[in-house]
């Protein structure tokens, strides 16, 4: 470590005025000193203090950010973003926004109270004032601003983080809410964690059972695998060996979102599928794994069963699709499933909710898919999340979903019991009003 310079930078306003131990560029110092304004000073002091907290000795530049903090509905979030926006703060890098706690266009129709809507809209507008792109999407990797392989980025939102690291090969840690904002304003983050090559090495090799390709067709199968992986590996980086290539973006999205919910997985490798794992050796950076797990068909079947607490034949109150936000391909699959089921309309006792962002919705609409889905009785909500916005019907006690993430969070966030199944199972259940499920892909055969 260098000897401290004579004019060691200090963080203004910090009561202890401790000298900074992190190496800073001249531009970093200008931000920290307040010469460039209050917003960069505030953001840079948070970045530097976080670097100290995690023991990083350097900062690195990021080229893109994705902010999750905009989803929060609280007075302190409003205070935070207002302080930065009123000080003239602007993001320095391309910054996309996660969902907000409101469908900004259709909130009244969805039954959201006006006072809630006004505060959520104010928070949303303040993030746009900072210069962020109003994507309002929890699946920013499906958009047109997708990061490139090897790019250093600062993303929030656990499912987006695991997708960026694993599937795109971009580099980010799972940034806490508000750190994402400070990274966007400064363009800088501590040089630590998954930004560094050596920390992207696989920790645990997970061998999958020999399966017929057909077992892996449905993204729900990948969600169940992700759910199990999250439970088994926690924060470590798993190397999945034995998945059929090629995999679709929707399958990998389902896997990552579930693993980041039941565990804290920020990155996985899938041998022959993800870009940093052309083979097992490369995924392990030429070394050996700290741990090896062998998954059996029975373990996968048990995980699938464990995700549901509502048995077949019981009533369904709500069906939630689009967690994370639905893609064009998922809209197409939903429309096809509706045609196959052959029922003209969902059961009147079931709320069928599809979450997506405006970009995917515009494409699906242009493709004629949304009309078909709406005629079946589905409500398509834009920009938002059923856990942050009061759009799920009061009294929905049993929720069906094809999402591992939704299956994990709905019991706590909505107080609901879960029926988990494929997209087709969800449509059948919506039509009949009771849980209707095929056997899991790993049922005894």
């Amino acid at each position, binding site marked *: 470590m260098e000897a401290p310079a004579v004019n060691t930078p200090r963080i203004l306003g910090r009561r202890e005025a401790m000298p900074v131990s992190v190496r800073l560029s001249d531009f970093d110092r200008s931000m920290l000193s307040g010469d460039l304004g209050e917003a960069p000073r505030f953001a840079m002091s948070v970045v530097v203090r976080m670097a100290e*907290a995690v023991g990083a000795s350097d900062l690195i530049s990021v080229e893109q950010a994705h902010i999750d903090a905009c989803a929060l509905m609280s007075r302190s979030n409003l205070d935070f973003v207002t302080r930065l926006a009123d000080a003239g703060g602007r993001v320095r890098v391309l910054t996309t926004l996660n969902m907000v706690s409101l469908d900004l266009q259709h909130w009244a129709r969805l039954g959201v109270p006006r006072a809630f809507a006004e505060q959520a809209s104010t928070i949303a507008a303040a993030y746009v004032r900072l210069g962020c792109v109003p994507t309002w999407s929890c699946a920013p990797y499906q958009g047109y601003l997708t990061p490139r392989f090897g790019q250093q980025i600062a993303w929030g939102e656990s499912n987006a983080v695991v997708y960026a690291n694993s599937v795109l090969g971009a580099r980010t840690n799972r940034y806490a809410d508000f750190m994402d904002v400070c990274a966007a304003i400064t363009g800088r983050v501590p040089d630590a964690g998954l930004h560094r090559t050596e920390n992207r090495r696989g920790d645990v090799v997970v061998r999958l059972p020999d399966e017929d390709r057909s077992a892996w067709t449905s993204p729900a199968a990948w969600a169940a695998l992700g759910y199990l992986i999250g439970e088994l590996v926690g924060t470590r980086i798993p190397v999945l060996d034995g998945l059929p290539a090629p995999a679709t973006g929707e399958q990998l999205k389902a896997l990552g979102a579930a693993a980041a919910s039941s565990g804290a997985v920020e990155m996985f490798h899938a041998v022959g599928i993800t870009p940093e794992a052309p083979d097992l050796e490369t995924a392990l950076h030429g070394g050996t794994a700290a741990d090896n797990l062998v998954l059996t068909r029975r373990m996968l079947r048990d995980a699938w069963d464990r995700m549901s607490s509502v048995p077949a034949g019981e009533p369904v109150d709500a069906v939630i699709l689009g967690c994370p936000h639905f893609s064009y391909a998922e809209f197409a699959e939903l429309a096809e499933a509706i045609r196959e089921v052959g029922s003209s309309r969902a059961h009147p006792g079931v709320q069928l909710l599809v979450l997506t962002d405006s970009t995917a919705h515009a494409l699906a609409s242009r493709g004629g898919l949304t009309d078909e889905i709406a005629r079946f009785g589905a409500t398509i909500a834009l920009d938002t999340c059923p856990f942050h916005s009061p759009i799920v019907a009061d009294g929905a006690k049993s929720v069906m979903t094809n999402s591992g993430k939704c299956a994990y969070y709905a019991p706590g966030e909505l107080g609901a019991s879960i029926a988990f199944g494929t997209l087709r199972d969800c449509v059948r259940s919506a039509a009949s009003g009771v849980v209707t499920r095929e056997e899991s892909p790993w049922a005894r055969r």
Partner: protein
Amino acid sequence: MGETVIGRPIVPGEATGTVLRSARAISLWGGVDPQTGEIIDPHHDRCGESIVGRVFVFPGEKGSSTGSAVLLELARRGLAPAALITSALAPVVALGAIVAEELYGTAIPVILVSQDEMAELADGDRLRVRVDGTLRRATPLE
């Protein structure tokens, strides 16, 4: 505990308070009510207790990266814990404490100690947290 424990100040600050000790990692989001400071996660060993004004001792964080916002909202309401002591790096908690100080001027020291040192901190101990990370027993008047 002995006379003092020397921890690493992840977020430096001064505080005095009574220890609430927990055996399990916590996710502040979904784990602590941001309006009351009560632990609400039914899987947590101190569920039903309040962290308001306490020196909350916990072995690490887990779960949501939105936990920082829960700590910030507690600070806004004047319901922050006095200090947080953990035996594993807790970036989400640390970020919440840093932003609380920058935004509201509320100091919530976050101190990293070893597992052995953490074992010496007993529930109900009255502790004084120093800016250099030192923890020592507080006299009743402090």
